[in-house]
């Protein structure tokens, strides 16, 4: 049974259709990437998923059925717009947010102590939140999201505003939660982070699902347009190659539409080129993203 299943959801704000017939599902224990350019409809999809917005059509199943109050205690949500009570000390802020997730004061205290130590915030726990730096507040927000040990973790742009060290710390933490079997939805437009962490993704643009599936499958779908060749010989003129691009001592051959990599391999062998490496170039998620968003779409 999927942890989350969105089925044909649509949501408009006035004349703007923010989400248009979006469907995807996330399996239990999966680290799933929700991608899209700014204003694509990612956050609206999350808000519909969390029952903050009611969809005009479609349905959402979350943790085995429609959203209800008790399920909120099993979900950790870190919105893109970070929000903590600024005027109270950090430990009191965490205690309040933890209590709203059904934790007892003792549980909050014990769990917060561990995370505060890990994030190097123990010395700042009595400070008012507004006195903390932006990065510290970001870390505090992560703690508030994880404090109740959620089954489903939804993080919207979790690396925004973090330095490389803290980015790695959050990444490790997400990976650790994934190892524990927590279902994670990582919403981001930082493709390399998603590529590094997620197994499956959905890419939304203009409110519509543009790509959906396992990351390897998607990359494979978009591969075949180029091959990487490493050789000490000069690359001869080849039929079906549109452009040759040198990359780190090798060359990337961009193929014309309708040219199969096998034809290139055959041509190279036929012309006695000594091949040290011949592989089908897999596009990066960044490249796929740009191609999809620029309207190239997935290859047939």
């Amino acid at each position: 049974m999927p942890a989350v299943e969105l089925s044909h959801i649509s949501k408009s704000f006035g004349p703007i259709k923010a989400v248009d017939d979006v469907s995807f599902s996330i399996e239990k224990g999966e680290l799933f990437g929700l991608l899209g350019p700014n204003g694509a409809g990612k956050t609206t999809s999350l808000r519909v998923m969390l029952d903050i917005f009611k969809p005009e059509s479609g349905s959402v199943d979350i943790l085995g059925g429609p959203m209800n109050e008790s399920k909120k205690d099993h979900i950790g949500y870190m919105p893109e717009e970070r929000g903590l009570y600024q005027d109270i000390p950090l430990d009191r802020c965490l205690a309040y947010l933890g209590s709203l997730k059904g934790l007892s004061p003792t549980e909050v205290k014990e769990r917060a102590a561990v995370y505060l130590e890990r994030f190097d915030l123990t010395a700042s726990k009595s400070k008012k939140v507004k006195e903390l730096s932006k990065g510290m507040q970001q870390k505090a927000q992560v703690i508030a999201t994880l404090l109740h040990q959620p089954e489903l973790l939804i993080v919207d742009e979790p690396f925004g505003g973090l330095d490389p060290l803290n980015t790695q710390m959050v990444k490790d933490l997400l990976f650790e939660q994934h190892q524990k079997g927590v279902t994670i939805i990582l919403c981001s437009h930082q493709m390399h982070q998603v590529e590094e962490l997620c197994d499956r993704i959905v890419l939304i643009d203009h409110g519509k699902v543009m790509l959906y599936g396992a990351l390897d499958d998607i990359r494979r779908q978009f591969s075949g347009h180029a091959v990487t060749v490493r050789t000490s010989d000069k690359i001869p003129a080849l039929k079906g190659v549109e452009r040759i691009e040198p990359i780190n001592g090798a060359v990337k051959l961009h193929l014309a539409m309708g040219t199969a990599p096998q034809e290139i391999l055959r041509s190279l062998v036929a012309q006695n080129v000594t091949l040290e490496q011949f592989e089908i170039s897999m596009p990066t998620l960044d490249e796929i993203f740009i191609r999809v968003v620029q309207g190239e779409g997935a290859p047939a």
Partner: protein
Amino acid sequence: MTKLWHVAWHEYQRHVFKRRFVLIGLLSVPLIILVMVGLIYLVLSLDINTTPLGYVDYSGLLKDALPAPAPEPPDRPVPVLPFETEAAARSALDAGQIQAYFVLPADYLSTGRLSVVHLGALKDPARQQFYNFLTANLLRNTDPLIANRLVKGAEIIVQTPDGSRSVSSKNWFNVLVPIVAGIAFIIAMFSTGGYLMQAVVEEKENRTMEVIITSVSPNQFMAGKIIGDTAVGLTQIFLWMLFIVIPILALRNTMSFLRGIQIAPQTLLLMAFIMFPAFILVSALMAAIGATVSEAREGQQMVSMLSLPIWIPYMLTGSLMGNPNSPLALGLSLFPLTAPLTLLLRDGLTILPAWQIALSALIQVLCAAGAIWLAGRAFRLGMLRYGKRLKWREVFARNQP
């Protein structure tokens, strides 16, 4: 349900356990009252001139005169000095030894005429003390009980035919009690509503809203906030009452007029049935305002529009006192925002028919419930409007996002 109480407690402690609450929230009204009482005392004290009074008695009535009865605080005793002749009294007056002198002619008893000579203004308290001195001496041979009664005067008690309510001429202060209570209640109501509005705006401004509503339902959250902030207001009122009651109890032995202060059970009932729902009504309306605006400053402007009708009864005090049962008074007693003060004002001046109280209370409760519904609706719609104001027509729109 537990989450509702967590929200309420969080809301309560974030206001009550703050220095600002102690300094402004708690001490403001007692300080205002203290300053007002101080000013009244100062004005009364300035009215009291303890320079002796003189008299020249040609009637013989004040021979071997009894001392003047002691005045009641804040009045202070003015010595009364006899003079043999008007010339002697006049030189004492010119020398500033006395502030005035009275001349009782030989036929005073039959004519009741006496004259008074003074240079500056002779204030009422001093004049009254001389008359009390004169009366006490005229009655020196009368039964002391009767003499005392004549000097102290009668206490006229106006009461309803069924005897359920009465007002004493000596306890005039009781008429003021509901008015003062009303002002205190409204100040508490607005400061509490202000906290609530500010909290809702702040949660939008600092983006906590989205985190909160994925933990607790908007209705529970709003109800918890209203409960918490109403508790803040009640704490404020309770402590104000302590600040007021303790000095009254402490001073009642020295200030006799304080002895008569009492709050009628009907006033307490009025407070419970009219003021409490009014409290909820105003709090919920303030929360609704907080949910629709994007900044606290914008909310303050709307609050001033809300506060205007609440103070209307005070602006019309003269008319309400002149005719506390007029159609205007009745209309203001039934309109939710003007009802609290109008009813409390009228309560001190007339006998309020039970049906008017019941109808007004019913309207208050219905409006308070409606305001909570409105606040919840505005909150649900406005909670994620960052930097953009929610229009009221969107709140009332049939189709909701």
